[in-house]
């Protein structure tokens, strides 16, 4: 299967005065797994639907390989889509659902059946071919939707929050399975989610969107550790945004940068665990909460700003004994202190 790169070139879309996509440009490489991540209303689904052909952009261009698909009808785009609510045909059984795109292509009956069955086996649904879709569990429906989207070997796959209706354990299993399927097929995939963890686990690259714009596009690690805006920093996890003035370096040197981001889990309570170029934050313990794998401490700095400090339970021997109101210091290694390029916006 030959997968294709996708080019999104200054695409905009407005609904009345509401701007859903604001001059979005994005290049997705052939075979890449790219996630559009953002809160609801950020434009990620609109962008996906524009690629699928269900939303007509106001301006801009969409290219699949070298081909301009901006004005191409959805049924000619050769794109597999997995919908949030699965969109399985209720009047067809599992096999008929999966064989549907093949039937449209006039594939001989026997071959279509055989290919549909093989695809069902690939998503671990062997033996359910004759089942009515209404009789399936959420996870099984998800797999049928997946099988149906890949059976006709599209060159691009779009997934619109496909796991949001599943419970947590199943969701995690499916994350790995979808990623493995992608690696097996090598198909260019654009995945939409509002779950930052899911995006981190699954993606080659993540494009974080907000208010119709792409805030940052990068690898999961860089998005998490080196966010380019405050929005990205806070959306990706528990981030503390502090001014250089509120921290001091252990070695006495000036902390540089305009706005610093330190993730809650970057802190240590023991100065011996960090280097001499680490920064220290001093304050009063406001609250503490045990969260299973870690403790979450809320520290009020002298300036009044609150900072979240997350200590792994394995390293948090003394956390249970800490009392609210007591003065304490948290240390973060220099490598984990990130200067956000943008100002305190």
């Amino acid at each position, binding site marked *: 299967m030959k997968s294709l790169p996708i080019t999104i070139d200054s695409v905009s879309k407005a609904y009345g005065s509401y701007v859903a996509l604001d001059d979005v440009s994005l290049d997705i490489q052939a075979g890449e797994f790219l996630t559009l991540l953002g809160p609801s209303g950020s434009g990620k689904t609109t962008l996906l639907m524009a690629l699928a052909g269900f939303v007509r952009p106001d301006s801009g261009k969409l290219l699949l390989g070298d081909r301009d698909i901006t004005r191409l*009808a*959805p*049924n000619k785009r050769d794109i597999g889509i997995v919908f949030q609510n699965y969109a399985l*045909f209720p*009047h*067809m059984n599992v096999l008929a659902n999966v064989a549907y*795109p093949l039937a*449209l292509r006039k594939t001989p009956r026997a071959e279509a059946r055989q290919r549909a069955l093989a695809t069902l086996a690939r998503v671990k649904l062997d033996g359910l071919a004759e089942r009515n879709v209404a009789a399936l569990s959420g996870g099984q429906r998800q797999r049928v939707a997946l099988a149906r989207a890949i059976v006709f070997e599209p060159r691009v796959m779009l997934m619109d929050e496909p796991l949001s209706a599943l419970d947590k354990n199943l969701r995690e299993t499916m994350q790995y399975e979808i990623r493995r399927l992608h690696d097996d097929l090598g198909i260019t995939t654009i995945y939409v989610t509002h779950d930052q963890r899911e995006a981190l686990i699954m993606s080659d690259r993540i494009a974080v969107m907000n208010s119709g714009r792409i805030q940052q596009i990068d690898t999961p690690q860089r998005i998490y550790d080196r966010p380019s805006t405050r929005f990205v920093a806070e959306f990706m996890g528990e981030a503390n945004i502090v001014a250089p003035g509120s921290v001091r370096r252990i070695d006495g040197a000036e902390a540089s940068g305009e706005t610093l981001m330190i993730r809650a889990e970057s802190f240590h309570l023991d100065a011996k665990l960090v280097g001499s170029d680490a920064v220290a934050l001093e304050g009063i313990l406001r609250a503490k909460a045990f969260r299973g794998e870690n403790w979450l401490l809320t520290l009020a700095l002298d300036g009044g700003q609150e900072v979240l400090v997350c200590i792994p339970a394995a390293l948090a021997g003394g956390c249970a004994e800490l009392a609210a109101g007591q003065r304490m210091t948290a240390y973060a290694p220099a490598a984990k202190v990130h200067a956000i390029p943008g100002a305190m916006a």
Partner: protein
Amino acid sequence: MTVTVDPALAGDARRERRFFLSLSLPALFIVGLAAILPILWIIRQSFLTTGGEYTVANYSKVLSSGLTWSALVTTLELSLGTLAICILLGTPLALALASARPRVANLLMAFVMLPLWTAILVRTYGWLVLLRRDGLINAALTGSGLTAEPLPLVYNFTGTLIGMVHYMLPLFLLPVYAAMRDIDPNLIRAAASMGATLGQVIRTVIMPLSAGGIFSGSVIVLIYSIGFFITPAVLGGGKVNPLSTRIERALSTFQDWGSASVLGILLLVLMALIGVMLLAARRLLAQNTVAASHA
């Protein structure tokens, strides 16, 4: 392990069920009074002579009359013709309404429903004004030179059919529109993304999923059409005589309650037969859609 049921709680459950069942009593009473009793009375009538003795003469008289059979054929022609036109006109209209933006759909729906708020007699005479030899339509046709002679649009089968379709179309449209509007738009998007053309989407997704609505609409149209009286009586001009007008004539012209009752029973039997056929058709349809999609 067995659970001992507290008799008081079981009693509560029973009382609750009984209360909800009892809500249907007024309706059951009315149905019994207004439908079942009269039917039993008609069955009895059909076996009585004018003198009040039991006989099967009414049946032999009515069933051996050629007029009865021609009325039966007319009834079927009118009903099935009306249904066919309703399906041909109503299904695309319902599809248009269901795919229109909500505001446009509501406006169009208001136009569709408008005739339902007008008395049927008024509407029927309205058609008379339009369809007559010197009516608006013929005046326009001859005036513009499209036809040399006025077309025979009324006091015949055509006129009756036009009037009946006009009455039945909204009744057909409602369930079909409801069924189509309930189709998840993502199903249509999914089909398109897999390569389905508009025609294929309609054939493989929209039609199978609105079959239930089309079926309900068809049942309603047939039930209304089979016993329809006013429109054939006014627009048929005495030349279109389904069972309903025969019954009226038997009663008002000949005061022949026996024959009228037999004709009424004939109507009932016809309706029952059509009901059975429709149910069979639906079962067949359901099987076919699954089989057809089994590519």
